[in-house]
């Protein structure tokens, strides 16, 4: 019997994306979250006394050039070396081009597979054979699996491969292959990397994506960790998922239908958060809340989104303290008032509504408005544009959403400023 850990996509030192700090947010929990999660991995390997660790690519982040990161990795795997635990690494699309993976001063217990051709390492005491090949460049479009070595007779054969298999949404299609390609190799276990979500793609043989070990943005929600594999003579390998993340991303829709006032809306949100906190205890959460539904308070919250954002953060803070970090608050609620037949009245507010509706469909006006925002966007640095969610004036859909928000904001302010006895 022997046991090993299968992990991938560690992206050490890649920061959590676009996370705004605010007073009371659990800042200390996210500081170097990828390192803390990686240390959890090392601790798990040591406490479980596994026999070896497989890293299926993207150990380092492609954009990240700090050699400190590599040295940090070396210092951690040295701990495994001291416990006699070997480490096998293939480079993935992110760390293929970087010099880090192949040229670090690794201790003896680390083996990095060659990028030139597939290799096999025999681990005689356990009768195990690990086959692997690193990415030679960032974008590999060849089917690498088909050229992996023949399985060793009498050995437990493991294929270590960075691939998107037959494609996964949100992931570049690198080293594509099919499950039958993998099955055809005759291996016992395919340790894959690249896809950031834990998935057992097949059971005969086992084809496993362990996912990344720490979510870094809102598209990487839920628990993240590694797979602990136990191999017993004559039995199929057993896999157990172990969460390693130190803070967890969650995105929730909060339906405010029927909420009569802001307090009620906050209560609905708190109930949702409470359930999440309990479910993920004791891991702190980064939560994006999208408010939906038809509600009487639509005008109030859509009309003053800044105020609503502060209110939501303050109440999450008071209810859950450092357990919850409100990442973003999106308001997609709708007014309760039935659309009904509107009067043909030419009142100024109706005029405003009509004009708002009209400009959303007028490319020329959209462009004019974008131009008004030009002085700001020309000042914004390239880093700003790197986030796909970041507002861009040339994105018509985004502009339409902003125009709707502006309209709500305007109506709220005009009403507040209105007369009447």
């Amino acid at each position: 019997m022997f046991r090993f850990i299968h992990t991938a996509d560690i992206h050490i030192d890649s920061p959590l994306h676009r996370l705004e700090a605010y007073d009371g947010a659990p800042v200390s929990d996210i500081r170097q979250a990828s390192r803390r999660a990686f240390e959890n991995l090392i601790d798990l390997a040591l406490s479980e006394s596994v026999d070896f660790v497989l890293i299926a690519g993207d150990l380092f982040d492609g954009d990240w050039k700090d050699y400190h990161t590599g040295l940090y990795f070396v210092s951690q795997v040295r701990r495994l070396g001291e416990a006699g635990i070997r480490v096998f690494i293939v480079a993935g699309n992110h760390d293929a081009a970087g010099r880090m993976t192949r040229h670090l001063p690794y201790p003896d217990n680390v083996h990095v597979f060659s990028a030139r051709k597939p290799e096999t390492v025999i681990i005689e005491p356990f009768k195990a054979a690990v086959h692997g090949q690193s990415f030679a460049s960032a974008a590999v479009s060849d089917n690498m699996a088909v050229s992996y070595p023949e399985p060793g007779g009498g050995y437990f054969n493991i294929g270590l491969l960075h691939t998107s298999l037959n494609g996964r949404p949100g992931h570049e299609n690198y080293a594509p292959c099919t499950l039958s390609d993998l099955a055809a190799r005759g291996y016992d276990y395919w340790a894959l990397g690249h896809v950031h979500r834990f998935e057992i793609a097949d059971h005969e043989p086992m084809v496993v994506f362990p996912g990344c070990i720490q979510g870094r943005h809102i598209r990487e929600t839920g628990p993240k960790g590694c797979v602990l594999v136990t191999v017993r003579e004559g039995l199929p390998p057993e896999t157990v998922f172990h969460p390693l993340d130190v803070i967890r991303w969650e995105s929730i829709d909060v339906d405010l239908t029927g909420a009569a006032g802001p307090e009620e809306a906050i209560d609905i949100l708190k109930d949702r958060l409470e359930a999440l906190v309990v479910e993920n205890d004791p891991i702190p959460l980064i939560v994006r809340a999208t408010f939906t539904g038809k509600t009487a308070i639509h005008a109030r919250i859509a009309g003053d989104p800044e105020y609503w954002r502060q209110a939501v953060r303050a109440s999450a803070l008071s209810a859950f303290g450092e357990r919850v970090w409100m990442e973003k608050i999106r308001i997609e609620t709708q007014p309760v008032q039935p659309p009904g037949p509107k009067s043909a009245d030419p009142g100024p507010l109706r005029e405003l509504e009509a004009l708002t509706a009209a400009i959303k469909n007028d490319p020329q006006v959209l462009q004019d408005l974008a131009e008004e925002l030009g002085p700001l966007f020309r000042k914004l640095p390239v880093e700003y544009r790197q986030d796909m969610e970041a507002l861009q004036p040339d994105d018509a859909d985004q502009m339409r959403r902003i125009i709707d928000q502006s309209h709500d904001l305007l109506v709220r302010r005009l009403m507040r400023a209105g007369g009447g006895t």
Partner: protein
Amino acid sequence: MKILKLNLIAFGPFQDAAFDLSGGASDFHILFGPNEAGKSSALRALRNLLFGIPVRTADNFRHPHTALRIGARLAGPDGQEIAFIRRKGQNKTLRAEDDRTLLAEDALAPFMGNIGQDLFEQMFAIGHDDLVRGGQEIISGGGRVGQALFSAGAGLIRLQAVQQELTLACDDLFKPAAQKPRINALLSQLQETLKSRKDALLHAKEWKDRESALHETQTHLEAIGSRLTNLKQQRARLERIRHALPLMARKKEIDHALVDCRQAPALADDFGRQRIDVEQGLAMARNDLARAAADIEKINGQLAALTVPEKLLEHGPAVSAIQQDLGSYRKARQDRPGLEARMRLLQTQAANQLSEIGIDNTEGKTEHLKLPPRIMAAIQDLAKKYEQLTIRLETNQDQLDKIRNRMAALAKQEKALPVPVDLTRLRAALESAQQAGPIEKKLAESRRAVSEMETRLHNRLNRQTLWTGDMAALDALPLPPMESIDYFAKQFLDAAREIDRQKTDKAAIEADLVNIDIELTGMDLAQEVPTEADLEAARRRRDAGWRLISQQLAGHAPDPSENREFITQFEKAAGLTDAFEQSMRQADRMADRLRQEAAQVSRKALRQAEKAHKHALTDTIGAALDAAVAQHDALAAKWATLWEPVGIVPLSPPEMRAWLADMQTSITRYADLRAARSAEALMTAELESLKILLVRALFSHHKALEPTRPLEELTAAAKACIAAGEKAAEETATVRKELAVLEEESSGLTSSRARLEQELATWKEKWNAGITALSLTPDTGPGAAQSVIDGIRDAKKWINDADTLRKRIDGIDRDCAVFIKKVNDLKTLLAPELDAERPDIVAESLNDRLAAAREAATLRKNLIDQLEKARRDQADAEKQIAENNIRLDSLCREALCDEPEKLAEIEQQARLKKQLFDENEKNEKDLRHLSAGATVDDFIAEAGSMDADAIGPETERMDAEINTLEKESAALNQNAGVLKKELESMDGRAAAAGYAEEAEAVLASIDAEVAQYCRLKIASAILSRTIEQYREKYQGPMIRRASELFRQMTLGSFTGIRAEYDEKGDPVLVGIRPHTNEQVRVEGMSDGTADQLYLALRLAGLEQYLENSAALPFVVDDILLRFDDRRAAATLNVLAELSKKTQVIFFTHHQHLVDLANSELRAVLPVIHTMAV
């Protein structure tokens, strides 16, 4: 929508205040609240009616939250109506008129035309403040047309403020060339963070460069290290050789010196010391021998010269003995004359003393000088006794004198005191008065209580109005018992119940009758139900017609009058045929209906029968009711009879029950009053008797007081009188008591004096007896007797002392004789030549001679001892010499020599040989050390092969090289240290990663702020565009209408308004003056005029709205406050005109506006409602 009725059921100060807004001359309603509270509450009620009562309302001060209700009836745009009640609550606040049936929350929606509260208040409500602010807004906006139209059209007042807010908020977020706005600041922060991140980055090359540099340096260091080791080894070898060279030279010298002393024997280490020991020992022994021989010779000579007197020594003890007695002998001889003189003096003294006393003692007899102790003791006792007796007699006399004086004084005092009197009667009177207590006070209280009781009872009787008798008549009042009243009460109750029951029955039947009538009327109204009689009549009519027809058919012309009569029965009948046709149809229809409505008919019949029955029943019940009333009246008569004896007309039994109870209480009170009165009389009598007793008793003590004085004064006088009598009696008793005591003491003292005089006589007898025994005359007093006795005692003592001295003198004489004999005996034997000398001289001389003889004997003994010691020394020295000679021989043998004189030389050679050997050995050891492992011989051979002069320069060269290499090594080590430190700092730290995280956080903040900025910026843009677009669309019609309204409201001081372009080319509003057509910019208008301009625009906007949309009531709250009466009237006219298009509800609390409306409005008359709280 129109409000038909507004009912403030329970709201604010109102309770069921209803306003009918449906009727009247017009839809212009003025709601006049005489006070501010009423008006504003009603205004709020109107608003809350339509949009709900807010959670926190101040209108609950009269009615609790749950009771708040506003009712209304509304008419919708399509003529539909709704009546409802609005209550306070979270939901389900709409109810139907019954306040129970729930209405849907959106039940009002069809009436409100999709207008929410906010919009309603902006469009359809205007107050004075709004008007003022609207006017100011127009002025501050410079009259810009777009803004003015837009804000008037929507009822907005702070449009400019909103525009400014948006601009300011944008500027707070971002400005293209600034540092402070939030986004600018964040961008700077981002730049700094990115720079920090870049600075913190470690490039792989940096680390590798240092690592290989370190490796290189370490290799170089190792090479230098091995060269240094080699050099140092060589240098050390040369150094050893250099140190070995002098050692090798010395080795040669030693080898040479050893040749000379090779034969010397090996001697023990202490050989030298032993040799010197022996030689010195020999010399000393020879010396000792010579000295001993000299001593012996000398001592023998001294002995020969010495002589010792043996005979003297033989009697030595006797000579010593007399020498010892010599001192005593000489002392006694010296003392004897003094002793004899003292003896004679004592004898003379004693004789003189005795002769003084009168005793002749010339013969020296002493028998009669004896003083027997028994008599002496008795005489001394008697002397003491005499003294005591004398003192006691004197004391007795003193006391007796004092007592007699005091007795005389007391007798005088007694005579001066008053005579005692009898107080018994007075005391008895006082005691009675005191036992009676504060009787006067009690009496006063009792009187007050009685009068109070009287007053109360009197008032009590006056309070009841039925009976008018005096209090004294109470006891005799013939009141009926309570049971009788109870009996009547029950009877009355039964009678009343019977009447009620009959009345109820009657009412029920009457109600039934009404119902039946209603039903019957209903049946008739619905459609007169035909009766059989009706059918019969119709048929008869038809038959009549048929008769006429058949007559006609038969060719007989019917009777024209009959014919006409028949035809006229049917409306619009053209002729007989037509009439008959109708009659036939009527009869048929009647028959049909009778058949069809048989049920209805029978029901009607049934109801009619029921009605008849009920009427009959009514009569019966009427009779029963009359009987019950009669019975009641009879009972009332009996009731009155019951009270006749008392003389009153009774009220109802329950009332009389209360009255009776009250009267009984009064009777009890009257009994109490009488008891109190008699108690008071008793008390008065007692007081009088007490006073009389006291007055009489006092009179007997010569105190005359009137009995009318208060008891308290009388008792005080009695007390004073008693106190005075008691005091006098007490003083007399005291004096008499003391006199008796003194009398007794005086007689005691007199008898003790007699006893003392008796004792003195007895003493005299005893004294005389004792004194005679001492041969003294009987009249000798105790003092004289004592001095004779003392004289005899002294004389006796002196005689005894003289005898003692005599005996000592005799002893001295005896001792002298013995001493002289012993001296003379020894003189004869030992020193006859001293025959002539005094014995004491002889004794001394003999003693001196004995001392000299003893000295000579001692000297001789010493000399003999010395001689013996010298002889022993001689023998010892000889023995020493022999022993040392033997040791000397032994040393010679060890040194292998025959002659002791040569021993020293041999010894020196042996020591030299040993030194050389030792040095040689050390030398070899050092060499072996320097040879560093090689044998000494090899080393010497190797060293010998070296050129000794080359060693110095070679070492110096090596030192120089070592120095250079060491410096180089230190520099390299330092370099390696720096590199190591640098590599250590490249420890995988997360500084750069930390900055990357910070940058992400800053970017996230930028994201949020950018979005907000875009919202605000676009909002501002949209608003400007909307204002402009609105102006373009509605400028023409709105300004036209507003111009007309403005002209009306300003009473023609402006002919209107129009749009003109200002300096910047923006369209602005201007007022136009009549005649001159002068343009007046809004800045030039008065506040009131600006208000009117704003109102004109508002009304124009409202009319614009009403053209295309459903109307809602226009609610106006006292907007005319700043208008003068004429303009106010003009404006009221405008509002009245507006009421033709939509309902106008004008709230005011100013009477003059109401009056103005009444007097000035012509075309449209307002409906005035006054709100009464």
